Every structure is written in structure tokens, then in C-alpha cells.
């Protein structure tokens, strides 16, 4: 392979470094109007009065839309696991079609005006009165109301092997610990933005999205349109991390505002608006209990969780999933619980479940190691399973201990004294921590076409999403290798529902999903081109078998005999040859979904697939003030085959940076009295800055997973897993303090 595996620059690099890349709020339209939201200020209740008089009279205001005058929209479809697009509804609220308020921050009015400033000024002038209902908004206080989470086809909410409680009670050594993690928010730097216009009964939307097809399908339902009447365009997405997977109120209401005013309308949410109308990662309460023999072998592992969901929707996190896979405990019990809250629906955020679940599990394992006087890596080695611990399924590929071994060597792990508080540099206490990273590998159906033109160029049309993962670059590399053409000859069209539906850019699944279809399409194309060459009179390849022919240098050859794709197509009088994967009829689509779902389930019965790794962290903790700084980081990962050495490393680093925020600084604070987020800004919600992040050394083993297309395992999320655990463990090693509550802020270390 000439391109796969190489550190190739991003194809959109020039566009992004010159300001030429257009994001969704940047499409110019004549007669463009601007929209702004008014947010509810109570958690639960009913609107009794909205005074829009002053707002309406403000010069430049085109419309003030409230539940009193909004056109009727269809309700959101009920989530149905057989039709994934129904998951697109972030909440079940029919915005501005109801006087009910379900969360503090719910949009209760939209102002449309000639300019952005007028829209915002008028929004500020709207007065709303409410009749308040009692509301459950304090997560800590609602723990007792949690109920067992339901399993879905994608994610099981509980599981057991043996009797873990009994084994725990009998264990010579046992730990039974409680952890809490704060709500956090994605905070992509691009606020959610939509530019929408109606062309008759066609709706066109520019929208930063992780799944353009879901946005299309959802809006078609809400506005009662055939889905081919909706087009969603999203070539650049300014960060997403899960926060742009589903359809949040701003998107629906921009389309509504455009409908009401008959104008193209743009709405870029304010940063506060993002916090108030786009869900974040649920807070959690977790219990991890481990029983062990004195040699460290685990006899019991219990991992349970309580998370929240909004009453109008919310993602059920797979918090305990890591405990199904990481340790070879004789008895295992995992169980997830949910409590319904009168808060904005939470949603998926980079490694939902595993990011926070791995914190609790990996901190407990570390604690066990210290209690037993074992090196934490040695303890893991003694519990490394040969098969999936919970159910005995085979691992498709697992080099976890190899990651630990390489990491320990590179990081200088063995040289550290294990005694907590034993390393110091002036006022700084130094600590080293380690944790496992783990994220399941997924694959979903993806449609695409590959077209070879008579000028030798290749066009891939594929509705994939590019939020910065480098997907289009990776796809070009794979296609160039598959067809043996130069990368410069390959173009990828993406981020548009006018292209074949692909898959969600989530669950670290996009590259693997697209790769499977891409390889299939390239193989089809190759056969079609070869057949053409073989049959075309005068072709040097005439009469040969495929086995006699090699693809190379942008053509097909048998030794020196053969010719370029350009010549093959010209000779045959064809402008282009195209291969496609995926159906173009509704029936075909359903058949595809059923086929892929059964394949998926069959695959899941046979294999446990994942990306994994070892996170090594060194922290400095100020002995007097508790200020914690990350001074060194090393992550060694088993992520199957790496398609692009440069962008893959960036993805892994990005995950680690987000994990450092989760560990140390990030916390969405909800007022326990009224459910209002009190730090809805980037000045009070602290994502890591340049000065917080040292050189992050990232390595990977680059060993293909034999069960995945091209051996590719998703890479986008594994980086964030294990990070908070490694930080907490390093903080313990530095200070002797176990902080079991994220984020690990200053005051907790006193």
C-alpha cells in the first residue's frame, strides 16, 4: 500500500488555514434574515403570558414566533431501534407548538429580524410569565429514584456471571467504592448554527452535522415533507464530539423561522444558547467493587451506575461496558440505572459511558494494586483475560498488555517509587499514574459510489462527515491504494444529503463503515473496468483473465502489456465507469438495514471488538494550593490498522486533551433550585488551554484487526477513555489522596 499508513497532510488543510472553508453560518444569501432564541427561565411549568409587543415594534423585526402563533409542526417520531434515524430527535418536545416548559432554557420564542443585532435586542425585550410546576433538577438528590436502564440491541444495560456479591463478601481482599462525575458539555468552538431557506416545498439547510441523513429525515417528518424535498449540506463541521449528532431545537426553529418569514434565515446559537439547548454528558454516580485473592486475581467485579436522562429524551450511557471486557474476574455483575430529570436531554459525548466508566474502574484497580502492594500494571497483567470475561466470546484482536509493556518502557514506569508522596520537586509533588483505555469497535452500513472518469480521475460520492477527523483524507488514501491511482487523482464529495447516505459520524465507526463499502465498490469498479478492457476490440488486455492482470500506476497491466484507465475508457468510448454500494430505493434501503443489522448481530455473537490502550500520566501537584498540572503524557494504543499516521495521532491526542479537561477542569454547574446552568460560558466553563497541555506522546501498534475492513478499528474515542483514571491515579501517587469525584479541582485536594 502506497498511501495507507502514511502521515499525509489533510486535504482540506489549505481551505482551513486561509479562511476559505465555509461553515454553516457562512453561506451568503440575498435577503438573509437573522434569528435569535428566547429561553425559558424555569425548569418545568406552563407559559401564562408572553409579552412580545415591544419586540414586534422594534424596527427591523420581521417576526416574533411563539407558541401563540407558530405554524403547526408534526411531533418528533418515537425512538425505534430498527430505524436509527428516529434517534435523531434530541428531545420529544414540539418546540413552540406547546405552552409547556420541560427544561430551564427551552426555547419559548424566536425573533427574526433584518440584522443579528436587532434580533438579539428584540429577543431581550420579550417578557414571559410562567406557572411553575414542581421539578426534579438536583441529580444528587434524585439518586434514590433511579430505575434499571433498559437494554437495546446496540447496548446491554446489565449482565452477570456467577454471583459477584457473594464472591465479594467471601474475598480475602475487597474494595467497594463510590465515584461521582460531573456533567460536562462538548463545547465545540463552532456554536450550533443553521442557515435555512425554503424553495417552494423544498427545504435547504446548511447545518454542521454528524449525520446529515438524520437531520433530513427528522425535518421531513416535522415539516411533513417527502424526505427528498429536504437537503442538508454540511461539508465543514466546526467540532462536534457527539453534540451535533442529533437534531436540537435551533435547527428545527431556524427552518420554522424561514418558513414563517419566507426568507433565508440564519441562526448561530450564542454560547449560552448552546448550553441551554444542546445536551451534554450526563453526570454519574458509580459503584465499583472488586474482590481479589492476595495474589491479585479478581474473584468479583461489580460495576453499577446511575445516570440521568431528561424527561423529554436523553442518551442512556453504557457506563459499565468497560467492566464487561477488561478484567478476568471469576464473578462479574454490571448494571446501569437511570433517573428521569426535568432537565434538558443529555446526549452522547465522545466515548459516552466508557470515558467516565473507565475512570471509576481504573481508579479502583489502581487502589487495589496499592492495597495489595502490587505494581498496577502487574495487577492488570494477572487479570488479563484470554476471552471476554463476561461471556467467554473471543476477542477479535487485543494487544492491551503489549500497550502497557511498551508504554511502561517508554515512560520510565519501572523507575518510580510506588510509595505515594515520595517524589517531589520543590513545592511540586510529582505523581505517575496509569490506566487502561478501551472503546468498542462498531460498523454500520454506508452507501457510496466510486466513479472512474476517462481522464483517470476518481470521484467518491459519499455522505460522510468531516468534523476534523480527517475522514475524507483517509478515504482518498484507501481508494487510491485500492485502485492503484495517485491520491491526487481522487476526489471525495461528502457532507451533503444529495450524496448517497453514509452513516453517523459517531461511535468511532465512520472510517470502518465507509472502508468496508469503499473496498467493495472499488472491487466492483475494478471488475467493471477489467471487463470493459477485456471486451474492447484492440485492447492490449483483450482476452486476458483478471488473475493475469495487476492494477498499478493508474491502469491495468500484464507485465508491460496493458494500459492506463484513461486509455481503457477512451478505447471503450466510455466517459466514466461507476460502481455503487447501497440501495437507491426505500425497499432496498430497508433490506440493506435488515441485512446489515443481522450481520452486525451475528458478528457480535462471535466477536468482541475494540480499540484499547494504555494511558500514562505524570502530574505535578502544588503541595500547598492543590494546583494540578499535567507534566507528561504517553498513550500507547491498539487501534488496528492506522490509515493516516498524522491524523490518527491527532485524533488520539485530541481525545486525551478532552480527557484531561474531564479529569481536572470541566464541570457544567446546574443550580439545584431551578435547573439553570450557571456557568453557560467559555469563561466559566474551563476547557483546557494551550498552557495546560504538555507534549502528548502517542504511539500505536498498527496491527490490523482481522475481522474489520482493512483491519481498521475506530480511533476517535478510545483516546479519551482511561484519561481521567490515569490522572486520578497520578494525583494519588503524588499526594496520597484518592479523589473519587470528577473534576479533581483545587478544593478537593486540600
Amino acid at each position, binding site marked *: 500500500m502506497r498511501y495507507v499508513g502514511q502521515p499525509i497532510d489533510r486535504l482540506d488543510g489549505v481551505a482551513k488555514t486561509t479562511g476559505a472553508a465555509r461553515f454553516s453560518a457562512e453561506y451568503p444569501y440575498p435577503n438573509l434574515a437573522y434569528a435569535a432564541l428566547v429561553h425559558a427561565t424555569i425548569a418545568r411549568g406552563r407559559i401564562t403570558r408572553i409579552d412580545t409587543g415591544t419586540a414586534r415594534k422594534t424596527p427591523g423585526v420581521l417576526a416574533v414566533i411563539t407558541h401563540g402563533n407558530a405554524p403547526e409542526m408534526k411531533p418528533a417520531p418515537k425512538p425505534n431501534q430498527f430505524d436509527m434515524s428516529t434517534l435523531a430527535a434530541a428531545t420529544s418536545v414540539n418546540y413552540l407548538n406547546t405552552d409547556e416548559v420541560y427544561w430551564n432554557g427551552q426555547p419559548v420564542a424566536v425573533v427574526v429580524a433584518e440584522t443579528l443585532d436587532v434580533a438579539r435586542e428584540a429577543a*431581550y425585550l420579550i417578557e414571559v410569565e410562567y406557572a411553575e410546576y414542581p421539578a426534579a433538577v438536583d441529580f444528587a438528590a434524585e439518586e434514590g429514584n433511579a430505575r434499571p436502564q433498559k437494554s437495546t440491541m446496540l447496548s446491554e444495560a446489565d449482565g452477570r456471571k456467577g454471583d459477584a456479591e457473594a464472591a465479594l463478601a467471601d474475598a480475602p481482599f475487597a474494595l467497594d467504592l463510590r465515584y461521582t462525575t460531573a456533567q460536562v458539555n462538548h463545547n465545540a468552538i463552532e456554536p450550533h448554527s443553521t442557515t435555512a431557506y425554503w424553495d417552494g416545498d423544498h427545504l435547504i439547510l446548511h447545518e454542521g452535522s454528524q449525520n446529515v441523513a438524520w437531520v433530513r429525515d427528522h425535518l421531513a417528518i416535522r415539516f411533513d415533507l417527502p424526505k427528498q424535498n429536504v437537503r442538508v449540506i454540511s461539508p465543514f463541521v466546526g467540532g462536534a464530539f457527539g453534540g451535533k449528532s442529533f437534531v436540537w431545537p435551533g435547527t428545527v426553529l431556524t427552518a420554522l423561522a424561514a418558513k414563517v418569514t419566507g426568507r433565508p434565515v440564519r441562526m448561530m446559537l450564542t454560547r449560552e444558547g448552546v448550553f441551554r439547548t444542546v445536551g451534554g454528558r450526563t453526570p454519574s454516580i458509580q459503584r465499583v467493587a472488586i474482590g481479589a485473592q492476595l495474589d491479585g486475581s479478581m474473584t468479583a467485579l461489580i460495576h453499577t451506575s446511575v445516570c440521568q436522562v431528561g424527561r423529554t429524551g436523553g442518551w442512556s450511557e453504557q457506563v459499565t461496558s468497560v467492566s464487561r471486557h477488561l478484567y478476568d474476574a471469576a464473578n462479574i455483575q454490571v448494571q446501569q440505572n437511570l433517573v428521569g430529570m426535568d432537565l434538558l436531554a443529555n446526549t452522547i459525548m465522545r466515548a459516552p459511558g466508557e470515558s467516565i466508566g473507565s475512570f471509576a474502574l481504573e481508579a479502583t484497580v489502581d487502589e487495589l494494586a496499592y492495597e495489595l502492594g502490587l505494581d498496577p500494571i502487574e495487577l492488570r497483567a494477572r487479570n488479563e483475560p484470554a476471552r471476554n470475561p463476561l461471556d467467554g466470546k473471543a476477542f477479535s484482536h487485543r494487544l492491551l498488555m503489549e500497550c502497557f509493556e511498551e508504554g511502561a518502557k517508554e515512560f520510565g514506569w519501572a523507575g518510580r517509587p510506588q510509595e505515594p508522596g515520595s517524589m517531589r520537586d520543590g513545592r511540586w509533588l510529582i505523581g505517575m499514574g496509569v490506566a487502561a483505555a478501551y472503546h468498542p469497535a462498531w460498523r454500520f452500513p454506508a452507501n457510496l459510489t466510486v466513479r472512474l472518469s476517462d481522464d483517470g480521475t476518481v470521484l467518491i460520492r459519499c455522505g460522510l462527515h468531516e468534523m476534523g477527523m480527517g475522514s475524507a483524507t483517509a478515504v482518498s488514501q484507501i481508494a487510491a491504494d485500492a485502485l492503484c491511482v495517485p491520491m491526487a487523482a481522487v476526489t471525495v464529495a461528502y457532507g451533503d444529503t444529495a450524496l448517497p447516505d453514509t452513516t453517523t459520524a459517531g461511535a468511532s465507526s465512520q472510517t470502518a463503515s465507509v472502508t468496508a463499502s469503499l473496498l467493495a465498490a472499488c472491487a466492483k469498479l475494478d471488475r467493471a473496468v477489467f471487463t470493459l478492457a477485456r471486451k474492447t476490440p484492440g485492447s492490449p488486455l483483450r482476452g486476458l483473465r483478471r488473475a493475469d492482470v495487476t492494477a498499478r500506476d493508474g491502469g491495468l497491466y500484464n507485465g508491460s502489456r496493458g494500459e492506463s484507465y484513461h486509455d481503457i475508457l477512451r478505447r471503450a468510448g466510455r466517459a466514466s465507469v461507476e460502481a455503487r454500494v447501497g440501495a437507491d430505493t426505500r425497499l432496498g434501503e430497508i433490506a440493506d438495514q435488515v441485512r446489515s443489522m443481522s450481520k452486525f448481530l451475528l458478528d457480535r455473537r462471535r466477536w468482541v471488538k475494540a480499540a484499547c490502550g494504555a494511558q500514562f500520566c505524570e502530574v505535578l501537584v502544588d503541595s500547598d*494550593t492543590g494546583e494540578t498540572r499535567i507534566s507528561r503524557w504517553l498513550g500507547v494504543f491498539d487501534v488496528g490498522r492506522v490509515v493516516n499516521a498524522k491524523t490518527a495521532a491527532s485524533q488520539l491526542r485530541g481525545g486525551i486533551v478532552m480527557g484531561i479537561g474531564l479529569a*481536572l477542569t470541566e464541570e457544567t*454547574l446546574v443550580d439545584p433550585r431551578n435547573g439553570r446552568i450557571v456557568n453557560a460560558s467559555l469563561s466559566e466553563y474551563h476547557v483546557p488551554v494551550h498552557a495546560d497541555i504538555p507534549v502528548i506522546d502517542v504511539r500505536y501498534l498498527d496491527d490490523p484487526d482481522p475481522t474489520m475492513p482493512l483491519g481498521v478499528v475506530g480511533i476517535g474515542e478510545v483516546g479519551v477513555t482511561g484519561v481521567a483514571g490515569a490522572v486520578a491515579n497520578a494525583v494519588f501517587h503524588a499526594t496520597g489522596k484518592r479523589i473519587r469525584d470528577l473534576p479533581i479541582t*483545587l478544593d478537593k485536594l*486540600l
Partner: protein
Amino acid sequence: MDFLRPTTWADALAAKAERPEATPIQGGTDVMVEINLDKGRPAALLDLNPVAELRDWSSEDGWLRIGAGVSYTRLIDELGDRLPGLAQASRTVGSPQIRNRGTVAGNLGAASPAGDSHPPLLASDALVEAESVRGSRLIPIGEFYLGVKRNALEPDELIRAVRVPYADGPQYFSKIGTRNAMVIAVCSFAVALHPSRRGVGTGIGSAAPTPRRAPEAEEFLAGELDWDGRTAVPDETARRFGELVARAASPIDDVRGTRDYRVHALAVMARRTLGWAWTEYRGI
């Protein structure tokens, strides 16, 4: 929203007299936040950028007179040697982009308890030069802060300059935040030693409704320090100084930190800055 753009200081004062509700704007780094976040929509903005008189600083009788339009960046570059405490604090304000535009006068106008320039101004007995068409007056910094985001300016007054005496001894500033940069202080502290009068100045930030000094701590330390012999500060003295500083604060729990943490951290910062300052004084 009206936009007033006087080009001379006299015109600025006249405009403020005529429109006392007008919000003065210089770098914009505080006022614009309020406007953009819909927290306040002033009836009028009084843009002081064109007023040339505000752009410079001058020096007279051991005092610096820093015009209200002098940015943090210029203060750091041009006055860092004479006002080390204020310069250190200025280096931690927001981001470099903010420091290029923001001013000490703007920090005073906003009077946020978390403003970074307040502690060193308190520690060095600065004066705020306020002026209106009625005349000019010097407000001692200790009397300037009246409450959360409230200051002693009359409605028709504008800040002309901040007057700060040349450092006559070591000055240090310390700030604790939740990340390494771009932080609003969880709490902050400044100390200034005044060997010429054997005095100590202090300033506490983000730990009370207003920035404030710790007078008891100042008095205690001034009496304890071995100004002539320059012998090391006994641990007990440093500890007591820290305690008195912490006692002067009245912090609360808020989104950035807890009351208890602030009390603890203030004592630490007081001891630490004293240590740096005394080491410098001893010339070692």
C-alpha cells in the same frame, strides 16, 4: 444605543456631564462582554479611544500617572521595572489579545472583585484620578471600591488616570486559577514592601465583595520584619501573616471555588509572596 465619540478630554467630560448614564468604553474588554451577553444594554456608549490625552503615562515626583487608555501590554512593557507588582498582575489578565486592549482604568471602572489589577493597586496605595466638568479629585484606592461592581465615581465622572508610586521595595502578585492560563482568579493576593517607611502593603482579590487590604496583617508584618538586619522571616511570623491575611477576607462559595479553599489559599499566597519579596529584599 447612542454612540458618543469625543476627540478631546474636555469634550469627553462635557459628554459625560450631559449623558451621565453613558457607559465609557476604552478597550471594550469588559463593556463588550456585558453587551454581547445581553447582560446590559447601555443607553449610550462613550468611546474614549479618540481622546489623545488618555493614551500616555507620565512620571512626576516618584509617581507614575497612567492614562486611562494605556493598555496592559504597554504597562507591562514600559512600566514593568517601576511597577513590578502591577505588571505581574497585568501579565495574568485574560489573554494576550485582551491585554492588548484592556486597561487598568477599565478594570477599575468595572470594579469586579476578581479584577487582577486591584490587589497590587491596593498594596501600593494607588490613587484614582477622577474628573468631571466640576473638577478633578484623587480617590485613595482603598476608598474606591464600594461593592460588587460598584465604585466611588460620581455619575458625571470619568477616570482620567491611575496614579501609582514607584515601587520602593519588592512587590509580588500571586493568583490561583482552575487552569494554567485564561483564568478568572479563584483568589489572588499582592504584597508590596515599603522599606523607606518600613511599611507593608497588601491587596486581596476575589475573596470579598470588593478587593480589599489586610490592614492587621500589614501592621503586624511591618512590626515584625527585621528591616535593618534583613534576617530571615521566622516561619511563625510568615504563618501569622498568612492567617491575618486570610482573616481579612470574607469569601463565599461560588462557581470558581469554595470559601474554605480561598481562606486556605490566601494564607498560602501571603506566605509565598512574602517569601519571594523578602528574599529579594535581602538581596539573595
